[in-house]
């Protein structure tokens, strides 16, 4: 996707999130605008980096790295970033994602109906396996390294 097309979607998503942030969490959009703009800048730079970088990594790898660096205490402007991004709720950013997923889900429903309960139960087993697998390893390593 061209950057101009992606940028347009970023701005629209940002606006929808601001409105959701207001309705769901009663945060005045004017107070949340600086935080949303910071996120928009991080997203755009990360997206562009993944396009031009010789190392082929997904955009989210660059975006998360930039966001971490921008919010480490001591980095110039980090206090500003933390304070303002704090006005944008994590959950308010989730809802637009699932709204788009909801609009597009119709095209997958036929395949889903055909498979029924077996696939649902198999998926549940993967949730259990992934969570417990990760928790067991984390617990062992945290104990071994003396963190807990």
């Amino acid at each position, binding site marked *: 996707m061209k950057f101009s097309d992606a940028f347009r979607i970023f701005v629209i998503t940002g606006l929808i999130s601001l*409105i959701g942030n207001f309705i769901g969490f009663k945060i005045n959009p004017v107070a949340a605008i600086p935080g949303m703009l910071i996120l928009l800048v*991080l997203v755009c730079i*990360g997206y562009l980096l993944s396009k031009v970088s010789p190392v082929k990594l997904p955009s989210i790898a660059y975006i998360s790295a930039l966001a971490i660096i921008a919010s480490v205490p001591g*980095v110039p402007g980090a206090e500003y970033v933390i304070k303002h991004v704090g006005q944008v709720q994590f959950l308010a950013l989730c809802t637009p994602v699932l709204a788009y997923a909801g609009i597009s889900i*119709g095209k997958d429903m036929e395949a889903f109906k055909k498979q029924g309960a077996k696939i649902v139960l*198999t998926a549940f087993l993967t949730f259990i*396996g992934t*969570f417990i697998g990760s928790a067991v390893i*984390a617990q062992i390593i945290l104990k071994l390294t003396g963190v*807990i």
Partner: protein
Amino acid sequence: MKQKDWKVHVLALVMVAIAEYIGIKRFQLGPGTVLLLPMLYALVMGMFLPLLKLVNRIDMETASPYIGLSVMFLTAKMGTTIGPNLGKVISAGPALLLQELGNLGTIFFALPVAVLVFKMGREAIGAAFSISREGSLAIVADVYGLDSPEGQGVMGAYITGTLFGAVFNGLMVGLIISLGLFHPYSLAMAAGTGSASMMTAALGPVLTAYPAMEAELSAFAATSQLLTSVDGLYMSLFVGIPATEWLYRKLKGKKADSATNEEVVS
């Protein structure tokens, strides 16, 4: 396409507004806390749109890439929760990195049941190698094609996760906390499995149980989540899928190749 996609955005806006208006609902169910989040309402509303003739096939195709673009804001937000806690995250680094391998544990747990108990064919490979989030869809589409049995498996599991994943994880984690086997740090790390809604739902009961540790628990979950979204693709492609294929052949024995067609029909 540029002009026509306004309908998709307006629909998304309306769905978000309604979902946020309803707000977060939580209630106790047994040992677990069920957390109903606005994102779940948005998804459910979406499922009714075709029935109300509000969207057609083209709108669905249009909305699909916007999922991946809107997720990027979430990624940036998570990054800014890690930065302030970077010291703690680094001291827990080895555990955070290695627990990523736990995501592969699902293969040895879910695949045998799918193949031996449910008698599934190759759809089981698509459904059982991961928790079937967007990245897994992309991998299966690339390796097998989404119209293949494996593709149908991953798609079915993807829809299951999107619909029930948050509710299921909330209940499951509530139950696991009540067992008292794991330190809250371990639970927070395990909560980050690559899905925003599942992470939120899994972390919710942990934060409720240990409110004093909220900042570091959130940072651990977000770090684990980001690690999964970065390494998950490569882990699945180079380790997960080959391991699943191998185990599938072991489980099926000689029937592995001939079994596919008949079981897709049944």
